[in-house]
C-alpha cells in the first residue's frame, strides 16, 4: 500500500447469495486493487466423502438454495457418467424444463431483487430517471417486484408439478426423472408458461419474447431501445440508465469466457481474447495459494497469505469468466460477441441474462409440447463399485462441475467447482487476480462514499452465488 492509498473493507455485502466481503485499495478516488473474500466454509466435499454415491442426490442440492437444481443435475450427471446411463427423451425434456425453470427464475430474481434496487438509492436522486427507478425498484416494495415476484412464484408451480418442490428436490435422477407427466399435467405446464410469458411481456420487456430473443447486434439493441419511450418496460429502463451511467465501460473482466454448454442451445467451449477453443475439463486445476486450504478438502484458517475460503480455478493457468454472457459468447451469439468484445462489462452481463431469459421461456414451451405421456421418463442406472466421472452443468450464473470418484461402492472423492468459484476466485500462485478482482480495478468512488455504488454494480452484475462458491 503506497502512502497515498487507503483501504476500504465492504461488508456485509448483501443482495448476493451468501456471504461476501470485498477489500479495496483506493488511491485518488479509484480502486487500485481488490481482494474478494468468501468468508463461509461448510465442508460439503468432506461431508460427501464416504457416503453411498446416490446420497449425493440428497446432499449436493443442499449446497445451494438458489442453484439447487443445478447442483442436483450435476450430481446426477456425474453418477450417470460412471454408470454409463442414458436417459429416455421424456426424462431429458423434464430435466431440461426443471433446470431451465431454475435458471429463468434466478435471472428474474437477480434483476428485480438483487441488481436493480441499487439504482433506486438516494445517491441517484439527481438523475432524470431516478423517480421511475425508485418507484419500480426500491428494495422491498418496488412496483416491479410487486408484479414479478408473484409471477415468479406462480412460475415455480412448474417445480411443484415436475420436481415436487423447489428448492431441494430428489426428482432429478441419473436415468431421468421420478415424475411421469400425464396429458393433463402437460397442459397445466403450458398454462404456467403462458402466464409467465404474459408477465414478462407486460412488465419486464414491454414486447414479445421473440422480439427480445432476436436482438442480434448492438445496432438492433439500440434501435429496439429507441423504438419506444425509455420507461416502457424494465429492460428499456435499464438500458436507459446504463446509457446515462456508462455501464458499458464499467466492470471489465478478463476477456476470457468459459461455458459447459447447456440444453443443446448453447455449446460448450472457451473464448480467450477472442479465440474460440474446445473446453477440456482435464485442463482445469484449482490453485490454493490464497485459499485457507492446505489441501483440496483440508481447511486451514491460519494459513499465511490466504484471504478467502474460495479456491482459484484456472484453465491452463488462466482465470475465466462464466455466466449468461459467456454462454452466448462461446455459442457465437453476435450481440454477446459485440458487447463482450474486450471482456465482460456490467451492461453486457445484464443484457445477455435478460435475453437468455426470453430465449429460455420460448425453449421451455417447445420442450413441454415434445413430452410424450405414456412413454418412459426414467431408466435404472446401476453403478459399478468404482469409477470416476464428471457432471457438467450451466447454472444460471455459469459453469458448474462435479467430479465424483467411487471406490468400494462409496464416494472416495467429491470435487465441486461452482460458477462463482470461477468468477470470484482469489489470486493464484502467480499473483493473477480472479475475474471480479480484475473487474473492480479502476472503478471510481464518488465523494464521501463508504460503500461505493460502482463497486456494488460490478459485484452484483456477476449474479454471484457465494454459498456455491465455497460449499
Amino acid at each position: 500500500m503506497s502512502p497515498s492509498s487507503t483501504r476500504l473493507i465492504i461488508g456485509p455485502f448483501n443482495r448476493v447469495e451468501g456471504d461476501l466481503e470485498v477489500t479495496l485499495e483506493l488511491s485518488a478516488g479509484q480502486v487500485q486493487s481488490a481482494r474478494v473474500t468468501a468468508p463461509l466454509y461448510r465442508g460439503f466435499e468432506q461431508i460427501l466423502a464416504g457416503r453411498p454415491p446416490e446420497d449425493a442426490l440428497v446432499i449436493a442440492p443442499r449446497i445451494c438454495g438458489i442453484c439447487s437444481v443445478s447442483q442436483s443435475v450435476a450430481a446426477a450427471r456425474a453418477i450417470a457418467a460412471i454408470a454409463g446411463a442414458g436417459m429416455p427423451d421424456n426424462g431429458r425434456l423434464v430435466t431440461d424444463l426443471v433446470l431451465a425453470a431454475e435458471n429463468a427464475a434466478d435471472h428474474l430474481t437477480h434483476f428485480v431483487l438483487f441488481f436493480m434496487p441499487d439504482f433506486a438509492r438516494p445517491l441517484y436522486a439527481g438523475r432524470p430517471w431516478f423517480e421511475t427507478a425508485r418507484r419500480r425498484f426500491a428494495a422491498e416494495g418496488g412496483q416491479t417486484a410487486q408484479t414479478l415476484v408473484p409471477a415468479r412464484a406462480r412460475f415455480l408451480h412448474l417445480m411443484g408439478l415436475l420436481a415436487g418442490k423447489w428448492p431441494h428436490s430428489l426428482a432429478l435422477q441419473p436415468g431421468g426423472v421420478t415424475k411421469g407427466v400425464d396429458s393433463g399435467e402437460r397442459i397445466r405446464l403450458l398454462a404456467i408458461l403462458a402466464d409467465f410469458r404474459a408477465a414478462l411481456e407486460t412488465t419486464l420487456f414491454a414486447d414479445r419474447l421473440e422480439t427480445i430473443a432476436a436482438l442480434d447486434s448492438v445496432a438492433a439493441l439500440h434501435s429496439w431501445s429507441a423504438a419506444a419511450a425509455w420507461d416502457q418496460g424494465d429492460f428499456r429502463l435499464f438500458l436507459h440508465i446504463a446509457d446515462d451511467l456508462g455501464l458499458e465501460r464499467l466492470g471489465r473482466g478478463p476477456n476470457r469466457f468459459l461455458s459447459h454448454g447447456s440444453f443443446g442451445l448453447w455449446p460448450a467451449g472457451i473464448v480467450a481474447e477472442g479465440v474460440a477453443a474446445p473446453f477440456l475439463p482435464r485442463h482445469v486445476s484449482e490453485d490454493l495459494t490464497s485459499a485457507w486450504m492446505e489441501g483440496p478438502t483440508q481447511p486451514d484458517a491460519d494459513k499465511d497469505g490466504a484471504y478467502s475460503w474460495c479456491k482459484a480455478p484456472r484453465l491452463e493457468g488462466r482465470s475465466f469468466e462464466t455466466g449468461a454472457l459467456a454462454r452466448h459468447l462461446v455459442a457465437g451469439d453476435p450481440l454477446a460477441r459485440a458487447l463482450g468484445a474486450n471482456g465482460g462489462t456490467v451492461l453486457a452481463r445484464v443484457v445477455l441474462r435478460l435475453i437468455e431469459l426470453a430465449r429460455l421461456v420460448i425453449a421451455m414451451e417447445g420442450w413441454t409440447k415434445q413430452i410424450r405421456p405414456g412413454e418412459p421418463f426414467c431408466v435404472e442406472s446401476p453403478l459399478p463399485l468404482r469409477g470416476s466421472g464428471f457432471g457438467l452443468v450451466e447454472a444460471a450464473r455459469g459453469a458448474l462441475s462435479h467430479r465424483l470418484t467411487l471406490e468400494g461402492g462409496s464416494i472416495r472423492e467429491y470435487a465441486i467447482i461452482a460458477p462463482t468459484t470461477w468468477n470470484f476466485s482469489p489470486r493464484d500462485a502467480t499473483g493473477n487476480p480472479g475475474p471480479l478482482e480484475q473487474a473492480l480495478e479502476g472503478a471510481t468512488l464518488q465523494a464521501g462514499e463508504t460503500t461505493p455504488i460502482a463497486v456494488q454494480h460490478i459485484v452484483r452484475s456477476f449474479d454471484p452465488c457465494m454459498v456455491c462458491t465455497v460449499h
Partner: protein
Amino acid sequence: MITPFSILWLQAGSCGGCTMSALAADDVGLVRALARFGIRLLWHPSLSEETGAEALSILEDAATGRVRVDALCVEGAALTGPNGTGRFQIMSGTGKPVTQWIKAIAAHARHVVAVGSCAAFGGIPAGETNPTDAVALQYGDNSLLGADFRGQAGLPVINVAGCAPHPGWLVESLAELALSDRCALDSLGRPRAFADHLAHHGCGRNEFYEFKASAARPSDRGCLMENLGCKATQAPGDCNIRRWNGHGSCTDGGYACINCTSPGFQDPGAPFTETAKVAGIPVGLPVDMPKAWFIALAALSKSATPKRVRANAHADHVIIPPARLPSKQS
C-alpha cells in the same frame, strides 16, 4: 392499527434455500405475505437495500439493544469451528464470527426463530463428519444458545424445521408471534401448527399405501415406503395437506420423504432412497403403530390388492384405469 413487528434475518451456515423457499410464500412473496400481519424486515441479507456500512449499523443497533427486534430469524447452522473460534464463518465487514452476532442479538430479541433444519437441529452441515463443528441454536448438548435460553417473551427457540421449510410454516409462525406473542410448540420446539401432522397425511399415493402396492424403481407410481426409503409415515409436516409450489410435494414428485423436519435426517444410516429392512420388514414403521399389527395388516392388504393397483404401482402412468369389476352374470 397493528403495531409493527420487526424481523432481523441472519444467514449462518446455510445454503440460502430457506430464503428462496420463503420468497414464493403464498404466491405473493415473503415481504407481502408478512406485511399482511404488520411484520416488516428490519434487515434481510437478500432483500434489503442496505449493504456494507449501512447494514452494519443496523446489526450493531440490534446487538446492543438500541433497536427493537421482535424476532431474530436465523437461517443455517451455527458454525463453531475451528477449535471453538467460529472462524468458519466471519460476518463480513466485522472480523467477528457470525456465532457471536447471533448470541449478541438473541440476548435482546423478543423471539428467536430457527429457520430451517440447519438452525433448528444442525442439518446437513452437521452431517457426519461435521467438519465445521456445526451446531443448532437450541437442540442437542452443544447448542449455540444452550438449553436454558429463552427469548425476551419467554419462549425457547422456535424451530421452523424443514429443508427447506414450507414458506407457510414460516409466515404463519411469525404471524402467530406477531398476533399473540405465543406459539404452541412440540417437544422439539417445532410449531404444532405443522408438526402435529405427518407428511403421509393426504399423500396422493394413499391407495398404493393401503394395499402395500410398492414402487420398485424411480418413476413408479406405487407407494415409496417399502422399497424406496419414504419416511412420510414418521415425518412431522403437513406437506401433503397444504402442498408445495402450487400443488407439489416430495411424494407427488415421485421420490421419498427423507424426514427433513427431524433432527439427524442428514445421517439416515442407510442410503436415503433405500428402505432399511430387517428380515424383509422395514425398520421405520409408522410412528405409533404396533409392529405386529402393521405386518398383519400389510399381509392382508397385499393379498386383497386389485390387479389395477398392482399394475399401476409398477408404471409411470396409469396402465389400468379404475372400473367396476365385470358382473358375474353375463
